[in-house]
């Protein structure tokens, strides 16, 4: 066991001897590392400066532009919407005023028509009633005369029926006097 451990230790010592304690300080391969490093850096530099960075920059600025544009457009649309709303309100107010005006006009017109019709009707009614009164008066007149006539005739007949000779003139006078009374 002990000898094996010792052997392992000696192997380790061999390994340590073959490679220096810090491989970083083995200057024999620095040239190689620096050579590959320079190539790597140059390749990375060209990949970045020729392809990657311009592309990412353009994507970022494009996105920034799009966002700015969208915001501006949204602002514009908002203004438009506000304008449209104002116009709508204006139209609504106008329409309401117009409607009120039309209602008032119609009312005035109807009132005027109504007044004319009423006046006409009243005139007609008064004309008709005057005519009727006249007719009634005529009828009454006619009736009076007929009554007088009938009364005279009746009186003459009555007088003759009583066997008396009727004097037409006195009968008329008597009837007239009676009618007046």
């Amino acid at each position, binding site marked *: 066991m002990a000898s094996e451990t010792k052997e392992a230790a000696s192997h380790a010592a061999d390994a340590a001897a073959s490679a220096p304690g810090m*491989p970083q300080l083995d200057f024999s*391969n620095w040239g190689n590392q620096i050579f590959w490093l320079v190539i790597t850096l140059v390749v990375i530099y060209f990949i*970045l400066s020729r392809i990657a960075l311009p592309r990412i920059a353009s994507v970022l600025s494009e996105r920034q532009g799009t966002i700015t544009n969208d915001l501006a457009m949204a602002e514009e649309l908002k203004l438009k919407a506000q304008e449209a709303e104002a116009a709508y309100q204006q139209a609504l107010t106008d329409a309401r005023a117009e409607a009120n005006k039309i209602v008032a006009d119609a009312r005035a017109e109807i009132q005027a028509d109504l007044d004319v019709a009423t006046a006409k009707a009243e005139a007609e009614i008064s004309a008709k009633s005057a005519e009727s009164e006249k007719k009634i008066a005529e009828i009454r007149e006619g009736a009076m005369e007929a009554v007088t006539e009938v009364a005279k005739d009746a009186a003459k007949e009555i007088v003759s029926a009583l066997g008396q000779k009727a004097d037409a003139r006195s009968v008329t006078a008597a009837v007239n006097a009676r009618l007046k009374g």
Partner: protein
Amino acid sequence: MATEAQGAEEGGLVFHPMDQFIVKPLFGGENIGLFTPTNVTLWMALAVVAIFALLVLGTRGRAMVPSRAQSVAELAYGFVYKMVEDVAGKDAVGFFPYIMTLFMFIVSANFLGLIPMSFTTTSHFAVTVVLALAVFLTVTVVGFVKNGTKFLALFWVSSAPLPLRPILAIIELISYFVRPVSHSIRLAGNVMAGHAVIKVFAGFAAISVISPVSVLAITAMYGLEILVAFIQAYVFTILTCVYLKDALHPAH
């Protein structure tokens, strides 16, 4: 190899916490020449693939409403862009692709390194020193090109009392040149330490009594390492931005 097998047989403790950082040729052989494809090559290539998948394939829809991958790509873009703009200033956005390259490479390498059995390229000083020196040189050159000799005002603290200024200038100068050192060691050190600690806990798991604790510790460390992987990339990037700000506006 033999050691590991023996270690497992014996149930003894065999620690190789640093073996995970060994650079190996990808297709056999022993010698690593300048152009030999190694595990470094493989994992750097995978980092490139990951970045390509996220930032190019993920955004190929160019969608107005992003997909998940596109959201992450846009998030990464916005994160780094805002950092550059806020920390380094508006006139530094020209350096954005450069800084984004650093950030994407470090963050991808860090996260790929968290895959078990993987190789962490950012745990190597060779890598981080190059990254930090690149930043250091860029910042210094930019500072002198943009400001000329006025860039030296960075070291001349005009708000301090006059006798103190030369002393402060020396301190500022030293701290300026220490920047790439701390910048690189901070990243590699953090990443390497975390990975090594996980490996050490994994070594303890060979003892059956300790193994539950060990597994718990590995889990906790792994969670911490996920945090560290992002934070170190963030720290490296934001320090780059701070240095860049100094270069563009050197006055205190």
